[in-house]
Protein backbone atom coordinates (compact mmCIF):
# COMPACT_ATOMS: atom_id res chain seq x y z
CA UNK A 1 0.00 0.00 0.00
CA UNK A 2 3.01 2.25 -0.42
CA UNK A 3 1.41 4.04 -3.36
CA UNK A 4 -1.55 4.92 -1.17
CA UNK A 5 0.64 6.51 1.48
CA UNK A 6 2.41 8.52 -1.18
CA UNK A 7 -0.83 10.30 -2.06
CA UNK A 8 -1.77 13.55 -0.45
CA UNK A 9 -4.41 13.36 2.33
CA UNK A 10 -7.00 14.98 0.09
CA UNK A 11 -6.51 12.47 -2.70
CA UNK A 12 -6.62 9.66 -0.16
CA UNK A 13 -9.86 11.01 1.18
CA UNK A 14 -11.39 11.18 -2.29
CA UNK A 15 -10.12 7.71 -3.10
CA UNK A 16 -11.54 6.12 0.03
CA UNK A 17 -14.83 7.96 -0.27
CA UNK A 18 -15.30 6.76 -3.82
CA UNK A 19 -14.38 3.26 -2.71
CA UNK A 20 -16.91 3.40 0.11
CA UNK A 21 -19.61 4.72 -2.19
CA UNK A 22 -19.01 1.80 -4.53
CA UNK A 23 -18.96 -0.66 -1.64
CA UNK A 24 -22.23 0.67 -0.27
CA UNK A 25 -24.15 1.25 -3.46
CA UNK A 26 -23.42 -2.14 -4.99
CA UNK A 27 -24.59 -4.22 -2.03
CA UNK A 28 -27.49 -1.83 -1.43
CA UNK A 29 -28.83 -2.38 -4.94
CA UNK A 30 -28.39 -6.13 -4.54
CA UNK A 31 -30.14 -5.98 -1.20
CA UNK A 32 -32.98 -4.04 -2.75
CA UNK A 33 -33.39 -6.69 -5.43
CA UNK A 34 -33.38 -9.44 -2.86
CA UNK A 35 -35.68 -7.53 -0.56
CA UNK A 36 -38.24 -7.69 -3.34
CA UNK A 37 -37.75 -11.43 -3.50
CA UNK A 38 -37.97 -11.72 0.29
CA UNK A 39 -41.15 -9.69 0.25
CA UNK A 40 -42.66 -12.05 -2.29
CA UNK A 41 -41.58 -15.11 -0.35
CA UNK A 42 -42.76 -13.81 3.01
CA UNK A 43 -46.11 -12.82 1.61
CA UNK A 44 -46.40 -16.20 -0.08
CA UNK A 45 -45.75 -18.03 3.17
CA UNK A 46 -48.22 -15.91 5.07
CA UNK A 47 -50.85 -16.56 2.41
CA UNK A 48 -50.21 -20.33 2.27
CA UNK A 49 -48.57 -20.09 -1.14
CA UNK A 50 -45.12 -21.13 -2.33
CA UNK A 51 -43.96 -17.91 -3.98
CA UNK A 52 -41.53 -17.54 -6.87
CA UNK A 53 -39.75 -20.83 -7.58
CA UNK A 54 -39.28 -21.07 -11.32
CA UNK A 55 -36.10 -19.49 -12.62
CA UNK A 56 -33.33 -21.94 -13.28
CA UNK A 57 -29.88 -21.05 -14.57
CA UNK A 58 -28.39 -23.49 -17.09
CA UNK A 59 -25.08 -24.36 -15.39
CA UNK A 60 -25.79 -23.81 -11.72
CA UNK A 61 -29.19 -25.42 -11.99
CA UNK A 62 -27.61 -28.74 -12.90
CA UNK A 63 -25.53 -28.96 -9.72
CA UNK A 64 -27.32 -31.59 -7.63
CA UNK A 65 -29.17 -30.47 -4.47
CA UNK A 66 -27.91 -26.86 -4.53
CA UNK A 67 -29.22 -26.02 -8.00
CA UNK A 68 -32.80 -27.18 -7.45
CA UNK A 69 -32.75 -25.69 -3.94
CA UNK A 70 -31.79 -22.25 -5.22
CA UNK A 71 -34.45 -22.52 -7.87
CA UNK A 72 -37.06 -23.41 -5.28
CA UNK A 73 -35.91 -20.49 -3.20
CA UNK A 74 -36.47 -18.22 -6.20
CA UNK A 75 -32.86 -17.13 -5.91
CA UNK A 76 -32.52 -16.07 -9.55
CA UNK A 77 -35.79 -14.21 -9.78
CA UNK A 78 -34.34 -10.77 -8.94
CA UNK A 79 -31.90 -11.20 -11.83
CA UNK A 80 -34.63 -12.05 -14.27
CA UNK A 81 -36.90 -9.32 -12.93
CA UNK A 82 -34.16 -6.78 -13.51
CA UNK A 83 -33.55 -7.92 -17.06
CA UNK A 84 -37.25 -7.97 -17.68
CA UNK A 85 -37.83 -4.40 -16.57
CA UNK A 86 -35.02 -3.24 -18.84
CA UNK A 87 -36.22 -4.95 -21.97
CA UNK A 88 -39.89 -4.15 -21.55
CA UNK A 89 -41.40 -1.45 -23.70
CA UNK A 90 -40.95 1.92 -22.08
CA UNK A 91 -44.30 3.38 -22.89
CA UNK A 92 -44.99 7.09 -22.59
CA UNK A 93 -48.70 7.81 -22.76
CA UNK A 94 -49.68 10.68 -25.03
CA UNK A 95 -51.34 12.74 -22.33
CA UNK A 96 -48.52 13.02 -19.84
CA UNK A 97 -46.42 16.08 -19.05
CA UNK A 98 -43.24 14.76 -20.59
CA UNK A 99 -40.52 16.59 -18.69
CA UNK A 100 -41.91 15.83 -15.26
CA UNK A 101 -42.81 12.33 -16.38
CA UNK A 102 -39.16 11.68 -17.09
CA UNK A 103 -37.89 13.55 -14.07
CA UNK A 104 -40.09 11.98 -11.42
CA UNK A 105 -38.56 8.49 -11.24
CA UNK A 106 -35.09 9.95 -10.81
CA UNK A 107 -36.26 12.34 -8.12
CA UNK A 108 -37.91 9.45 -6.31
CA UNK A 109 -34.78 7.36 -6.50
CA UNK A 110 -31.98 9.74 -5.63
CA UNK A 111 -32.93 10.84 -2.08
CA UNK A 112 -33.22 7.24 -0.95
CA UNK A 113 -29.59 6.67 -1.85
CA UNK A 114 -28.38 10.01 -0.53
CA UNK A 115 -29.65 9.21 2.96
CA UNK A 116 -27.41 6.19 3.13
CA UNK A 117 -24.36 8.45 2.89
CA UNK A 118 -24.45 9.53 6.53
CA UNK A 119 -25.30 6.19 8.10
CA UNK A 120 -22.45 4.53 9.96
CA UNK A 121 -22.81 0.97 8.74
CA UNK A 122 -19.85 -0.33 10.68
CA UNK A 123 -17.17 0.76 13.11
CA UNK A 124 -13.81 0.98 11.39
CA UNK A 125 -11.85 -1.09 8.96
CA UNK A 126 -8.19 -0.27 9.27
CA UNK A 127 -8.03 3.48 9.68
CA UNK A 128 -11.24 4.13 7.78
CA UNK A 129 -14.50 4.95 9.51
CA UNK A 130 -17.31 2.94 7.99
CA UNK A 131 -19.46 5.85 6.99
CA UNK A 132 -19.38 7.68 3.68
CA UNK A 133 -19.85 11.18 5.05
CA UNK A 134 -19.19 11.69 8.75
CA UNK A 135 -21.36 14.80 9.07
CA UNK A 136 -21.76 16.70 12.30
CA UNK A 137 -25.41 17.29 11.50
CA UNK A 138 -26.08 13.85 10.13
CA UNK A 139 -29.63 13.68 11.28
CA UNK A 140 -30.58 17.11 9.97
CA UNK A 141 -29.15 16.14 6.61
CA UNK A 142 -31.20 12.95 6.68
CA UNK A 143 -34.44 14.73 7.38
CA UNK A 144 -33.69 17.29 4.71
CA UNK A 145 -33.08 14.63 2.12
CA UNK A 146 -35.95 12.40 3.18
CA UNK A 147 -38.41 15.22 2.72
CA UNK A 148 -37.19 15.54 -0.87
CA UNK A 149 -38.48 12.03 -1.47
CA UNK A 150 -42.05 13.21 -1.56
CA UNK A 151 -41.35 15.38 -4.62
CA UNK A 152 -40.75 12.34 -6.76
CA UNK A 153 -44.14 10.96 -5.89
CA UNK A 154 -45.99 14.25 -6.17
CA UNK A 155 -44.32 14.97 -9.51
CA UNK A 156 -45.20 11.52 -10.77
CA UNK A 157 -48.80 12.06 -9.78
CA UNK A 158 -48.87 15.47 -11.46
CA UNK A 159 -46.98 14.39 -14.58
CA UNK A 160 -49.22 11.45 -15.32
CA UNK A 161 -52.08 13.87 -15.90
CA UNK A 162 -54.81 11.42 -15.07
CA UNK A 163 -57.08 10.78 -12.10
CA UNK A 164 -55.61 7.91 -10.16
CA UNK A 165 -51.99 9.00 -10.14
CA UNK A 166 -53.12 12.50 -9.26
CA UNK A 167 -55.08 11.27 -6.25
CA UNK A 168 -52.13 9.13 -5.26
CA UNK A 169 -49.81 12.11 -5.45
CA UNK A 170 -52.10 14.28 -3.36
CA UNK A 171 -52.47 11.64 -0.72
CA UNK A 172 -48.76 10.99 -0.63
CA UNK A 173 -47.89 14.63 -0.14
CA UNK A 174 -50.38 15.13 2.67
CA UNK A 175 -49.36 11.94 4.38
CA UNK A 176 -45.62 12.32 4.09
CA UNK A 177 -45.61 15.93 5.15
CA UNK A 178 -47.66 15.24 8.26
CA UNK A 179 -45.77 12.18 9.33
CA UNK A 180 -42.47 13.90 8.82
CA UNK A 181 -43.38 16.23 11.67
CA UNK A 182 -44.07 13.36 14.00
CA UNK A 183 -40.90 11.66 12.86
CA UNK A 184 -38.78 14.72 13.40
CA UNK A 185 -40.17 15.30 16.85
CA UNK A 186 -39.76 11.69 17.87
CA UNK A 187 -36.00 11.91 17.51
CA UNK A 188 -35.60 15.04 19.59
CA UNK A 189 -35.59 13.03 22.85
CA UNK A 190 -32.72 11.02 21.43
CA UNK A 191 -30.72 14.19 20.92
CA UNK A 192 -31.66 15.46 24.35
CA UNK A 193 -30.23 12.28 25.83
CA UNK A 194 -27.18 12.05 23.60
CA UNK A 195 -26.44 15.72 23.17
CA UNK A 196 -25.07 15.39 19.63
CA UNK A 197 -26.40 15.30 16.09
CA UNK A 198 -23.61 13.18 14.65
CA UNK A 199 -24.84 9.66 14.06
CA UNK A 200 -21.47 8.16 14.97
CA UNK A 201 -21.60 9.94 18.34
CA UNK A 202 -25.12 8.68 18.88
CA UNK A 203 -23.92 5.12 18.46
CA UNK A 204 -20.99 5.74 20.78
CA UNK A 205 -23.35 7.07 23.41
CA UNK A 206 -25.59 4.03 23.06
CA UNK A 207 -22.62 1.71 23.42
CA UNK A 208 -21.84 3.31 26.77
CA UNK A 209 -25.33 3.97 28.12
CA UNK A 210 -27.52 1.38 26.49
CA UNK A 211 -29.70 1.48 23.43
CA UNK A 212 -31.96 4.46 23.08
CA UNK A 213 -35.03 2.33 22.47
CA UNK A 214 -34.40 0.48 25.69
CA UNK A 215 -31.67 2.12 27.73
CA UNK A 216 -30.72 -0.60 30.19
CA UNK A 217 -27.91 -2.62 28.63
CA UNK A 218 -24.41 -1.31 28.76
CA UNK A 219 -24.79 1.52 31.23
CA UNK A 220 -26.51 -0.69 33.77
CA UNK A 221 -29.40 0.35 35.94
CA UNK A 222 -29.67 3.75 37.46
CA UNK A 223 -32.60 5.97 38.30
CA UNK A 224 -32.02 7.86 35.08
CA UNK A 225 -31.85 4.87 32.79
CA UNK A 226 -34.99 3.39 34.31
CA UNK A 227 -36.89 6.65 33.93
CA UNK A 228 -35.72 7.01 30.36
CA UNK A 229 -37.14 3.64 29.31
CA UNK A 230 -40.66 4.91 28.58
CA UNK A 231 -39.26 7.92 26.71
CA UNK A 232 -37.11 5.70 24.56
CA UNK A 233 -39.91 3.26 23.85
CA UNK A 234 -42.35 6.02 22.89
CA UNK A 235 -39.82 7.70 20.62
CA UNK A 236 -39.03 4.42 18.99
CA UNK A 237 -42.66 3.49 18.40
CA UNK A 238 -43.48 6.89 16.92
CA UNK A 239 -40.43 6.81 14.73
CA UNK A 240 -41.24 3.30 13.55
CA UNK A 241 -44.81 4.17 12.65
CA UNK A 242 -43.72 7.35 10.89
CA UNK A 243 -41.09 5.39 9.02
CA UNK A 244 -43.81 3.09 7.75
CA UNK A 245 -45.79 6.12 6.62
CA UNK A 246 -42.75 7.82 5.08
CA UNK A 247 -41.85 4.77 3.03
CA UNK A 248 -45.45 4.30 1.91
CA UNK A 249 -45.69 0.85 3.37
CA UNK A 250 -48.88 -0.75 4.49
CA UNK A 251 -50.88 0.07 6.57
CA UNK A 252 -50.07 3.56 5.22
CA UNK A 253 -49.73 2.94 1.51
CA UNK A 254 -52.32 5.57 0.63
CA UNK A 255 -50.25 6.74 -2.32
CA UNK A 256 -50.48 3.37 -4.03
CA UNK A 257 -53.46 1.57 -2.52
CA UNK A 258 -53.89 -0.91 -5.35
CA UNK A 259 -57.49 -1.65 -4.53
CA UNK A 260 -58.54 1.99 -4.78
CA UNK A 261 -56.19 3.80 -7.13
CA UNK A 262 -55.04 1.09 -9.55
CA UNK A 263 -51.48 1.56 -8.39
CA UNK A 264 -51.52 5.19 -7.41
CA UNK A 265 -48.82 7.57 -8.49
CA UNK A 266 -46.98 5.14 -10.78
CA UNK A 267 -50.03 3.89 -12.65
CA UNK A 268 -48.84 5.35 -15.95
CA UNK A 269 -45.28 4.15 -15.67
CA UNK A 270 -43.83 1.07 -17.26
CA UNK A 271 -40.52 -0.62 -17.79
CA UNK A 272 -37.48 0.74 -15.96
CA UNK A 273 -39.19 3.98 -14.98
CA UNK A 274 -41.54 1.92 -12.90
CA UNK A 275 -38.53 -0.09 -11.81
CA UNK A 276 -36.91 3.07 -10.48
CA UNK A 277 -39.93 3.86 -8.32
CA UNK A 278 -39.78 0.33 -7.08
CA UNK A 279 -36.07 0.49 -6.27
CA UNK A 280 -36.60 3.88 -4.67
CA UNK A 281 -39.31 2.52 -2.43
CA UNK A 282 -37.20 -0.38 -1.23
CA UNK A 283 -34.09 1.75 -0.88
CA UNK A 284 -36.22 4.07 1.25
CA UNK A 285 -37.20 1.16 3.40
CA UNK A 286 -33.55 0.25 3.84
CA UNK A 287 -32.73 3.83 4.71
CA UNK A 288 -35.53 3.86 7.28
CA UNK A 289 -34.40 0.57 8.75
CA UNK A 290 -30.83 1.83 8.91
CA UNK A 291 -31.92 5.03 10.63
CA UNK A 292 -33.87 3.11 13.24
CA UNK A 293 -30.95 0.79 13.82
CA UNK A 294 -28.63 3.74 14.26
CA UNK A 295 -30.85 5.94 16.36
CA UNK A 296 -32.52 3.41 18.60
CA UNK A 297 -30.87 0.01 18.46
CA UNK A 298 -27.23 0.94 18.88
CA UNK A 299 -26.13 0.73 15.27
CA UNK A 300 -23.26 -1.69 14.80
CA UNK A 301 -22.82 -2.43 18.49
CA UNK A 302 -23.92 -5.36 20.58
CA UNK A 303 -23.79 -4.95 24.35
CA UNK A 304 -21.76 -8.09 25.05
CA UNK A 305 -18.57 -9.90 24.02
CA UNK A 306 -16.82 -6.55 23.75
CA UNK A 307 -18.59 -5.82 20.50
CA UNK A 308 -19.51 -2.32 21.60
CA UNK A 309 -16.14 -0.70 21.03
CA UNK A 310 -14.46 0.01 17.72
CA UNK A 311 -11.85 -2.61 16.87
CA UNK A 312 -8.24 -1.94 17.77
CA UNK A 313 -5.56 -1.85 15.06
CA UNK A 314 -5.50 -4.96 12.94
CA UNK A 315 -8.75 -6.45 14.22
CA UNK A 316 -10.18 -6.75 10.71
CA UNK A 317 -12.48 -9.55 11.64
CA UNK A 318 -14.16 -7.53 14.35
CA UNK A 319 -14.64 -4.65 11.94
CA UNK A 320 -16.36 -6.95 9.49
CA UNK A 321 -18.43 -8.44 12.29
CA UNK A 322 -19.66 -4.96 13.16
CA UNK A 323 -20.84 -4.47 9.60
CA UNK A 324 -22.54 -7.85 9.88
CA UNK A 325 -24.30 -6.83 13.09
CA UNK A 326 -25.54 -3.64 11.47
CA UNK A 327 -26.81 -5.56 8.48
CA UNK A 328 -28.49 -8.09 10.75
CA UNK A 329 -30.41 -5.42 12.63
CA UNK A 330 -31.37 -3.66 9.43
CA UNK A 331 -32.61 -6.85 7.80
CA UNK A 332 -34.62 -7.69 10.91
CA UNK A 333 -36.39 -4.37 10.48
CA UNK A 334 -37.01 -5.11 6.83
CA UNK A 335 -38.56 -8.41 7.81
CA UNK A 336 -40.85 -6.66 10.27
CA UNK A 337 -41.86 -4.17 7.55
CA UNK A 338 -42.80 -7.03 5.28
CA UNK A 339 -44.64 -8.85 7.99
CA UNK A 340 -46.69 -5.81 8.94
CA UNK A 341 -47.81 -5.49 5.37
CA UNK A 342 -49.86 -8.68 5.73
CA UNK A 343 -50.89 -8.05 9.31
CA UNK A 344 -52.81 -4.81 9.12
CA UNK A 345 -55.38 -3.53 6.67
CA UNK A 346 -54.89 -0.12 5.09
CA UNK A 347 -56.00 2.90 7.09
CA UNK A 348 -58.76 5.04 5.77
CA UNK A 349 -57.44 8.37 4.64
CA UNK A 350 -59.06 10.45 7.39
CA UNK A 351 -58.01 7.94 10.03
CA UNK A 352 -54.49 8.24 8.78
CA UNK A 353 -54.45 12.02 9.12
CA UNK A 354 -56.20 11.75 12.45
CA UNK A 355 -53.59 9.36 13.75
CA UNK A 356 -50.82 11.58 12.48
CA UNK A 357 -51.99 14.96 13.70
CA UNK A 358 -54.09 14.19 16.74
CA UNK A 359 -52.25 11.25 18.25
CA UNK A 360 -48.65 11.04 17.15
CA UNK A 361 -47.67 14.69 17.10
CA UNK A 362 -49.06 15.49 20.59
CA UNK A 363 -47.54 12.29 21.90
CA UNK A 364 -44.19 13.17 20.39
CA UNK A 365 -44.39 16.64 21.92
CA UNK A 366 -45.29 15.24 25.32
CA UNK A 367 -42.42 12.83 25.04
CA UNK A 368 -39.96 15.66 24.44
CA UNK A 369 -41.15 17.40 27.59
CA UNK A 370 -41.07 14.13 29.55
CA UNK A 371 -37.53 13.38 28.47
CA UNK A 372 -36.39 16.89 29.25
CA UNK A 373 -37.99 16.65 32.68
CA UNK A 374 -36.35 13.32 33.43
CA UNK A 375 -32.98 14.62 32.33
CA UNK A 376 -33.36 17.82 34.38
CA UNK A 377 -34.49 16.00 37.49
CA UNK A 378 -31.81 13.33 37.39
CA UNK A 379 -29.23 16.05 37.08
CA UNK A 380 -27.23 15.42 34.05
Amino acid sequence: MAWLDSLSPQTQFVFFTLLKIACVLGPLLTLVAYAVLAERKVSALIQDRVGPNRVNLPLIGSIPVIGPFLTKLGFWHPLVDGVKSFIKEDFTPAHVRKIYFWLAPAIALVPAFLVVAVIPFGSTLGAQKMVIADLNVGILYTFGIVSLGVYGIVLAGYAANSKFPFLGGIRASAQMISYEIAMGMSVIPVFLVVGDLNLGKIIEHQAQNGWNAFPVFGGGFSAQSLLLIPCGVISFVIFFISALAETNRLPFDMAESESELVSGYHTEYSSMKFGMFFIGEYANMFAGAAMMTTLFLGGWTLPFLGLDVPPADGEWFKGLLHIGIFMGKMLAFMFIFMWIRWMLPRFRYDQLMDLGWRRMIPLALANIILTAAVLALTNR
Partner: protein
Amino acid sequence: MIVKRNELTWFERLYLPALIGGLKVTTRHFLNTLTTKTPVTQQYPEEPTRVLPGYRGAPYLVRDQDGATKCVSCQLCEFVCPPKAIRITPPGPTGQPADRTNAEKMPEEFEINMLRCIFCGLCQEVCPEEAIFLKSDFSLTGLARSEMIYDKEKLLALGGTHPGIQKWKHKLDEAKEQETFPVKA
Protein backbone atom coordinates in the same frame (compact mmCIF):
# COMPACT_ATOMS: atom_id res chain seq x y z
CA MET B 1 -80.41 -4.21 8.01
CA ILE B 2 -78.83 -1.74 10.32
CA VAL B 3 -75.45 -2.78 11.59
CA LYS B 4 -74.84 -1.62 15.10
CA ARG B 5 -71.52 0.10 15.41
CA ASN B 6 -70.15 -0.15 18.90
CA GLU B 7 -68.00 2.65 20.18
CA LEU B 8 -64.43 1.46 20.37
CA THR B 9 -63.02 1.20 23.85
CA TRP B 10 -59.85 3.14 24.58
CA PHE B 11 -57.91 -0.08 24.47
CA GLU B 12 -59.19 -0.89 21.01
CA ARG B 13 -58.43 2.62 19.90
CA LEU B 14 -54.78 1.99 20.69
CA TYR B 15 -54.85 -0.44 17.74
CA LEU B 16 -53.27 -3.00 20.04
CA PRO B 17 -55.95 -5.74 19.83
CA ALA B 18 -55.91 -5.44 16.05
CA LEU B 19 -52.15 -5.67 16.08
CA ILE B 20 -52.10 -8.75 18.29
CA GLY B 21 -54.88 -10.42 16.33
CA GLY B 22 -53.10 -9.78 13.06
CA LEU B 23 -49.85 -11.07 14.46
CA LYS B 24 -51.53 -14.26 15.62
CA VAL B 25 -53.15 -15.02 12.29
CA THR B 26 -50.09 -14.24 10.18
CA THR B 27 -47.76 -16.18 12.47
CA ARG B 28 -50.02 -19.21 12.36
CA HIS B 29 -50.17 -19.20 8.59
CA PHE B 30 -46.47 -18.47 8.20
CA LEU B 31 -45.39 -21.31 10.46
CA ASN B 32 -47.94 -23.73 9.01
CA THR B 33 -46.78 -23.13 5.48
CA LEU B 34 -43.13 -23.20 6.48
CA THR B 35 -43.26 -26.42 8.49
CA THR B 36 -45.98 -28.62 7.06
CA LYS B 37 -45.09 -27.57 3.52
CA THR B 38 -48.65 -27.89 2.30
CA PRO B 39 -49.27 -24.66 0.51
CA VAL B 40 -52.44 -24.32 -1.50
CA THR B 41 -50.47 -23.47 -4.62
CA GLN B 42 -50.93 -25.88 -7.46
CA GLN B 43 -47.69 -26.30 -9.40
CA TYR B 44 -49.57 -26.19 -12.64
CA PRO B 45 -47.54 -27.56 -15.53
CA GLU B 46 -46.03 -30.29 -13.33
CA GLU B 47 -49.14 -31.15 -11.39
CA PRO B 48 -52.18 -31.78 -13.54
CA THR B 49 -55.06 -29.51 -12.64
CA ARG B 50 -58.34 -30.87 -11.51
CA VAL B 51 -61.20 -29.81 -13.74
CA LEU B 52 -64.52 -30.23 -12.04
CA PRO B 53 -67.54 -31.76 -13.77
CA GLY B 54 -69.54 -29.09 -15.53
CA TYR B 55 -66.41 -27.16 -16.49
CA ARG B 56 -66.78 -25.43 -19.84
CA GLY B 57 -63.60 -25.98 -21.82
CA ALA B 58 -63.11 -26.01 -25.56
CA PRO B 59 -66.10 -27.08 -27.68
CA TYR B 60 -65.46 -30.23 -29.75
CA LEU B 61 -67.58 -32.34 -32.10
CA VAL B 62 -68.30 -35.88 -30.94
CA ARG B 63 -68.99 -39.13 -32.75
CA ASP B 64 -71.72 -41.57 -31.84
CA GLN B 65 -71.21 -45.09 -30.60
CA ASP B 66 -70.49 -46.38 -34.10
CA GLY B 67 -67.92 -43.73 -34.82
CA ALA B 68 -70.17 -41.78 -37.17
CA THR B 69 -70.47 -38.00 -37.24
CA LYS B 70 -73.36 -36.88 -35.11
CA CYS B 71 -73.59 -33.37 -36.47
CA VAL B 72 -76.22 -32.95 -39.15
CA SER B 73 -75.09 -29.55 -40.31
CA CYS B 74 -78.22 -27.79 -39.13
CA GLN B 75 -76.16 -24.68 -38.39
CA LEU B 76 -78.08 -23.83 -35.25
CA CYS B 77 -74.85 -23.56 -33.31
CA GLU B 78 -73.37 -21.30 -35.95
CA PHE B 79 -76.41 -19.12 -35.61
CA VAL B 80 -76.46 -18.97 -31.84
CA CYS B 81 -72.76 -18.52 -31.25
CA PRO B 82 -72.43 -15.01 -29.76
CA PRO B 83 -68.93 -14.18 -31.02
CA LYS B 84 -69.50 -16.01 -34.33
CA ALA B 85 -66.70 -18.44 -33.69
CA ILE B 86 -68.28 -21.30 -35.61
CA ARG B 87 -68.26 -21.50 -39.38
CA ILE B 88 -70.04 -24.39 -41.07
CA THR B 89 -69.89 -25.29 -44.76
CA PRO B 90 -72.96 -27.35 -45.50
CA PRO B 91 -72.63 -30.15 -48.10
CA GLY B 92 -75.22 -28.66 -50.47
CA PRO B 93 -77.44 -30.75 -52.73
CA THR B 94 -74.55 -32.55 -54.38
CA GLY B 95 -72.42 -33.08 -51.32
CA GLN B 96 -71.43 -36.13 -49.39
CA PRO B 97 -74.36 -37.80 -47.58
CA ALA B 98 -74.31 -38.40 -43.86
CA ASP B 99 -72.21 -41.30 -42.66
CA ARG B 100 -74.89 -42.56 -40.35
CA THR B 101 -78.53 -43.51 -40.54
CA ASN B 102 -81.27 -41.18 -39.42
CA ALA B 103 -79.46 -38.21 -40.84
CA GLU B 104 -79.64 -36.49 -44.16
CA LYS B 105 -76.40 -34.58 -44.16
CA MET B 106 -73.25 -33.89 -42.32
CA PRO B 107 -71.14 -30.76 -42.60
CA GLU B 108 -68.60 -30.61 -45.32
CA GLU B 109 -66.44 -28.39 -43.15
CA PHE B 110 -66.90 -27.31 -39.57
CA GLU B 111 -64.54 -24.75 -38.11
CA ILE B 112 -64.36 -23.28 -34.65
CA ASN B 113 -62.07 -20.33 -34.14
CA MET B 114 -60.83 -20.92 -30.62
CA LEU B 115 -59.55 -17.36 -30.44
CA ARG B 116 -63.07 -16.06 -30.83
CA CYS B 117 -64.85 -18.69 -28.77
CA ILE B 118 -65.87 -17.44 -25.35
CA PHE B 119 -66.68 -20.91 -24.00
CA CYS B 120 -70.24 -19.93 -23.26
CA GLY B 121 -71.68 -23.36 -24.02
CA LEU B 122 -74.60 -22.09 -26.07
CA CYS B 123 -73.64 -24.34 -29.00
CA GLN B 124 -73.82 -27.38 -26.75
CA GLU B 125 -77.15 -26.26 -25.43
CA VAL B 126 -78.74 -25.52 -28.78
CA CYS B 127 -77.55 -28.60 -30.68
CA PRO B 128 -80.53 -30.87 -31.40
CA GLU B 129 -78.28 -33.81 -32.16
CA GLU B 130 -76.07 -33.63 -29.07
CA ALA B 131 -73.15 -33.43 -31.42
CA ILE B 132 -71.07 -30.69 -29.85
CA PHE B 133 -69.82 -30.61 -26.29
CA LEU B 134 -67.65 -28.34 -24.22
CA LYS B 135 -64.89 -30.62 -23.00
CA SER B 136 -62.37 -30.03 -20.23
CA ASP B 137 -59.50 -28.65 -22.35
CA PHE B 138 -58.57 -25.16 -21.27
CA SER B 139 -54.99 -24.67 -22.33
CA LEU B 140 -55.14 -24.09 -26.06
CA THR B 141 -51.96 -22.79 -27.59
CA GLY B 142 -50.68 -22.23 -31.06
CA LEU B 143 -47.88 -20.38 -32.80
CA ALA B 144 -50.14 -18.72 -35.35
CA ARG B 145 -53.70 -17.53 -35.52
CA SER B 146 -54.41 -20.02 -38.28
CA GLU B 147 -53.44 -22.81 -35.91
CA MET B 148 -56.20 -21.78 -33.57
CA ILE B 149 -58.95 -22.39 -36.11
CA TYR B 150 -59.87 -26.03 -35.50
CA ASP B 151 -61.36 -27.80 -38.51
CA LYS B 152 -63.84 -30.67 -38.60
CA GLU B 153 -61.28 -33.44 -38.52
CA LYS B 154 -59.45 -31.97 -35.58
CA LEU B 155 -62.64 -31.28 -33.68
CA LEU B 156 -63.90 -34.82 -34.24
CA ALA B 157 -60.56 -36.31 -33.22
CA LEU B 158 -60.42 -34.24 -30.07
CA GLY B 159 -64.05 -34.81 -29.21
CA GLY B 160 -63.92 -38.58 -29.42
CA THR B 161 -67.00 -40.73 -29.21
CA HIS B 162 -69.87 -40.16 -26.89
CA PRO B 163 -71.51 -43.53 -26.40
CA GLY B 164 -73.19 -42.34 -23.26
CA ILE B 165 -75.75 -40.20 -24.99
CA GLN B 166 -77.53 -42.22 -27.67
CA LYS B 167 -80.44 -40.24 -28.80
CA TRP B 168 -80.87 -42.18 -32.08
CA LYS B 169 -79.90 -45.67 -31.02
CA HIS B 170 -83.38 -47.12 -30.65
CA LYS B 171 -85.13 -44.85 -33.13
CA LEU B 172 -84.16 -47.10 -36.05
CA ASP B 173 -85.48 -50.23 -34.38
CA GLU B 174 -88.67 -48.43 -33.53
CA ALA B 175 -89.07 -47.29 -37.13
CA LYS B 176 -88.53 -50.79 -38.43
CA GLU B 177 -91.05 -52.15 -36.00
CA GLN B 178 -93.54 -49.58 -37.21
CA GLU B 179 -93.21 -50.98 -40.69
CA THR B 180 -94.15 -54.51 -39.55
CA PHE B 181 -97.53 -53.34 -38.29
CA PRO B 182 -99.43 -54.49 -36.25
CA VAL B 183 -97.02 -54.11 -33.40
CA LYS B 184 -96.07 -57.29 -31.52
CA ALA B 185 -97.94 -57.61 -28.32
